[in-house]
């Protein structure tokens, strides 16, 4: 009933989005299955993988436009929450810069706090020694 190669191509879009042997996706999908009420197909994560050559937009005809739109929206989004920053490693150097900067910021804040404590302690010492 379906056009030639249509079903095969649809399966390939699913292989692209749900690659087999990816433990993270497997775990996440199993959670989705148990969460959802509509009865998700458990077979989805077992269907297969695409290699680099197959992962080209030109290999898709029926779903080409929708796939490209989804890819564009995905590429355009910039992370907003901290967890999105953590998972977003599309731009490697930027990801490292961000997390190193965050680490430095945390260390600075801790240093400032310790300095304040030291100042108060120092003052207290002078005050107590004058009273004695």
């Amino acid at each position: 009933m379906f056009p030639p190669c249509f079903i095969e191509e649809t399966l390939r879009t699913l292989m692209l989005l749900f690659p087999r042997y990816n433990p993270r996706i497997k775990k996440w999908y199993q959670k989705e299955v148990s969460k959802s009420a509509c009865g998700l197909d458990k077979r989805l994560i077992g269907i297969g993988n695409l290699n680099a050559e197959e992962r080209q937009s030109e290999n898709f005809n029926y779903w080409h436009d929708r796939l490209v739109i989804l890819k564009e929206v995905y590429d355009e989004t910039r992370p907003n929450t901290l967890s999105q920053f953590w998972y977003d490693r599309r731009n490697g150097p930027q990801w490292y810069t961000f997390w190193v900067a965050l680490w430095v910021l945390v260390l600075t804040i801790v240093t400032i706090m310790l300095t304040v404590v030291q100042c108060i302690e120092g003052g207290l010492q002078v005050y107590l020694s004058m009273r004695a």
Partner: protein
Amino acid sequence: MSSLDSSLFDEVPLEIKPLAVVHLWGQQSSHFVFHEDKPNLDAYFDSYFKYYAQQCDLIGRHENGEYSSVETHRDIMTIAQLLQQPLTRAEVRKHMTGVLKSANITQHDNSNNLVARLMLMIRIGGVPHEYSKGRYLEWEEGNLREFVHNYFAVPPTRDRDRIKLEKSFNALNVQRIGGIKIWWTDNLADHLRMMDDDKAVFIFHHASFLEHQLHK
């Protein structure tokens, strides 16, 4: 009396699963060997038959069965055989009148929509009391096969540059990094359609249905 003759008002019997699969999609290949013991039948196309039961409920059982003209699972299989032939909607209706209970055109059309939905997993025909975020398709002209072919054969509108879909472009990252919610759908025509101001995307999850179509 076979299990196919059971009324749509009863729960879908497990025994009809293999029969329904053959009637709706043709003979299965040896690729899918299964044993007819109960626990196995339970898992056999379980997500598809959830959809099947839900659609029967939506159309076949609505208004005490007055919404459509199908009464048993056998009626569904009879219509399925008609829809696989190159017949227009009106011709299918003509063939139905002798076989099914007497009904008007609207009831027959609703039955047609139900069976087309079951065969193709495409939401064909609007059902006013159906709640759904996606769209439905209206099959009016030609036979069902032509209609499906025409719908999916949309000429490409965008320029086809070679875009690499890198490995990290998977469903989990689309959701986690892209912030695009995944809405699971039973409607093949909604697959990969972006919704909700590009904040969500439909994904058709019935992989076993697709695989079965492939190995026929």
